[in-house]
């Protein structure tokens, strides 16, 4: 491939690609994202290749190995076009039938179709699956059509057209105005207006500027950045090139977590191909604009997602945050003006340029525009990545898209915003999700983690979980954060172990105020949030732990035990067979009994009993 050297070159090349791609052609889209990969995509792909050549279909059907489609829990996912037939959880042994029935004869195989857990109906098309049909996927929508290792796939869906538009018909100032008008705000946590950040960086003093992508994805439970980089790396790169043009930068970095090997690989391929096509590097598309991108792999420290720590880590140093009175847009990497944006923020940029700022601003709410990708996980039926317009109510996300809570359990809370966020109880299920409304109830948007919890989650244990997480991740340079979080962790451990004292809640609240006020970086400043929101909404659960020494959810081992209800137990023996400690005894068809000395409270029997006969005491 010779380099594309002008707008015309690009357009001719794209149009040729489009012409070659008949929308009526047979196409199998097989997801090989990290989720589906863990469920066995590779074996399915091998079987598919074998069957295709066995049936003499080579050249007649195209097999596209793509990134994440979003519905990872149902992986490996296969969609067969032009009919859009959706097969979840495909196994290698299903493949011969899929090839002979669905690909050759275009018949649907009923037993392989998705069964909606709510309506119990079989659904044949991807777009009719409730998990998908209420989403609005402007950033994620193309993942199913793109082989991330093939730049042509991205160009065939008008990829890099936004870049062409920017380079040949917009000044940097016009790009900045468009982003400002669109209302785009950072998707990495703070929600800072992206256009204003770019403008400040452009105006900052300095000869060299840097454009950077934060792919450290620290929020445990959120994985949209990973899926975007793995599945559609060019959308992120295109956003970065446009941003670099706007701020006047010729050098960019992507800081990726070390735990994301596939993202590093696909991004690396993407950069190489974009360079070969003349879309990255010197004199991009003959416009005279130069921009190169390097990948930097992080070392696995949560705090390195913070902007100043990230810059230090890029410089090869220990990632300790520095004071923010000097902003990184003025003095960031190597003390030069630097613009750091999140992966999803960058991926929104080409969409805005293509469809217009006004269109973008028409989506969402008054002050939160566009869509947001949420990682809907935990105790919810349909788990995966969900992209909806800002302002969509929690209930729509959890119940209509997520299918509600499995196993007839009760919803308890949803945690948003990661370790800096909070827990939102049932009373607020109708809350429209945007930056402001989440803040009103004591949580934050964060990067879009949405962890659903049911009656079996203990809120004190959850608070302890986050505090312990942050205790381990604090860089330790300021006392309030290092010592304050450690104290909180000890108090919470006492409460969970049955040593809680009167006054502990008050002490936690006082510590929270101190930590929030006197910590240097965002980690410390937000660390108490999960504790504060659980105290605010689930105070009675704390009190039960402290006063009655009981854990109603059956999580804190010192504060509960399992018992078998004589009335409800029918002696089916299932629990006794499954107990790893052989702690359960009883005669067949008669009520069983747990030997408390042997029981290790693993909960296997509790989950196994089909008659709800095992009770938490």
């Amino acid at each position, binding site marked *: 491939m010779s380099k594309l050297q002008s707008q015309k070159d690009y357009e001719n090349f794209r149009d040729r690609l489009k012409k070659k791609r008949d929308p009526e052609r047979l196409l199998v889209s097989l997801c090989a994202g990290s*989720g589906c990969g863990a469920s066995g995509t590779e074996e399915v792909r091998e079987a598919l290749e074998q069957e295709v050549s066995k049936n003499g279909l080579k050249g007649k059907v195209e097999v596209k190995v793509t990134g994440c489609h979003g519905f990872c829990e149902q992986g490996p996912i296969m969609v067969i076009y032009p009919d859009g037939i959706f097969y979840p959880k495909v196994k290698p042994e299903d493949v011969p039938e899929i090839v002979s029935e669905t690909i050759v004869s275009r018949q649907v195989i009923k037993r392989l179709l998705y069964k909606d857990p709510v309506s119990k109906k079989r659904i044949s098309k991807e777009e009719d699956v409730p998990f998908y049909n209420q989403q609005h996927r402007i950033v994620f929508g193309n993942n199913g059509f793109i082989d991330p290792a093939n730049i042509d796939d991205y160009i065939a869906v008008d990829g890099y057209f936004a870049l062409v538009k920017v380079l040949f018909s917009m000044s940097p100032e016009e790009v900045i105005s468009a982003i400002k008008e669109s209302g785009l705000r950072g998707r990495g946590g703070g929600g800072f207006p992206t256009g204003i950040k770019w403008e400040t960086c452009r105006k900052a003093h300095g000869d060299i500027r840097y454009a950077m992508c934060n792919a450290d994805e620290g929020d445990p439970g*959120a994985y949209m950045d990973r899926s975007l980089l793995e599945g559609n790396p060019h959308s992120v790169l295109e956003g970065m090139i446009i941003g670099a043009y706007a701020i006047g930068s010729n050098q960019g970095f992507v800081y990726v977590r070390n735990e994301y090997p596939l993202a590093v690989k696909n991004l690396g391929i993407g950069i190489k191909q974009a360079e070969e096509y003349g879309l990255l590097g010197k004199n991009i598309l003959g416009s005279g604009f130069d921009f190169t991108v390097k990948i930097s792999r992080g070392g696995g420290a949560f705090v390195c997602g913070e902007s100043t720590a990230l810059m230090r880590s890029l410089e090869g140093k220990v990632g300790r945050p520095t004071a923010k009175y000097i902003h990184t847009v003025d003095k960031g990497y190597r003390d030069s003006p630097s613009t750091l944006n999140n992966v999803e923020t960058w991926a929104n940029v080409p969409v805005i340029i293509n469809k217009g700022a006004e269109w973008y601003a028409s989506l969402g709410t008054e002050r939160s525009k566009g869509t947001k990708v949420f*990682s809907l996980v935990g105790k919810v039926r349909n788990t995966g990545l969900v992209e909806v317009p800002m302002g969509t109510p929690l209930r729509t996300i959890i119940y209509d898209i997520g299918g509600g809570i499995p196993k007839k359990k009760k919803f308890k809370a949803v945690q948003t915003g990661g370790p800096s966020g909070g827990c939102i109880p049932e009373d607020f299920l109708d809350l429209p999700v945007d930056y402001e409304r989440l803040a009103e109830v004591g949580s934050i948007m964060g990067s879009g983690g949405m962890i659903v919890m049911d009656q079996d989650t203990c809120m004190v244990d959850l608070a302890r979980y986050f505090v312990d997480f942050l205790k381990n991740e604090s860089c330790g340079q300021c006392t309030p954060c290092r010592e304050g979080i450690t104290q909180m962790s000890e108090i919470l451990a006492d409460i969970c172990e049955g040593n809680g004292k009167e006054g502990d809640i008050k002490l936690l609240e006082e510590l929270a105020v101190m930590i929030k006020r006197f910590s240097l970086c965002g980690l410390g400043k937000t660390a108490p949030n999960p504790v504060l929101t659980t105290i605010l909404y689930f105070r009675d659960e704390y009190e039960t732990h402290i006063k009655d020494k009981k854990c109603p959810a059956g999580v804190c081992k010192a504060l509960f035990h399992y018992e078998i209800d004589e009335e409800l137990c029918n002696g089916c023996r299932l629990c006794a067979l499954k107990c790893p400690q052989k702690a359960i005894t009883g005669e067949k068809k008669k009520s069983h009994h747990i030997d408390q000395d042997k029981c290790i409270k693993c909960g296997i029997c509790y989950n196994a009993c089909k008659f709800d006969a095992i009770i938490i005491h």
Partner: protein
Amino acid sequence: MTTIKGEPQVKQEPIDTAYLDNVLEQNMQDPENLIMILQDISAKYNYLPREALNYVVERLNVPMSLIYSAATFYKAFSLTPRGKYIINVCLGTACHVRGAGKIKESLEERLNIHEGETTEDLKFTLETVRCLGCCALGPVITVNEKAYGGLDRGKALKVIEQYEREA
């Protein structure tokens, strides 16, 4: 950082200087790329051998204290040898609420080591991670780079058995 249970049976292999030269070359001998240099060393040896670090000190002309501070700050690095199979149990929030703690306990019990330790035969190291990015499949573990999702106690133990059988 990980520790080995019992007396480690490590053979001190000589350091492959050709490999190190290549790593340094690829990272342009730039101290700014220190973290990636350490990652590449770790990829080969599973840990950061002292001799390799000495070599980096010499070639990059940086103090050992700098390397040491990076090596102890970042989770990805270990200064002691790790097992052939590094098991990472995800303790991220999504996995936590679906019972990751119990998976960790059962693996600790089975391998008779604690989090951060390596078995005596240097076969397994048990580590935890704050999220692997497969949250929809929680609880998740990885063994080296392969991920296993949708686990419960029994399934997790089966995964380990599979590796126990391998040499």
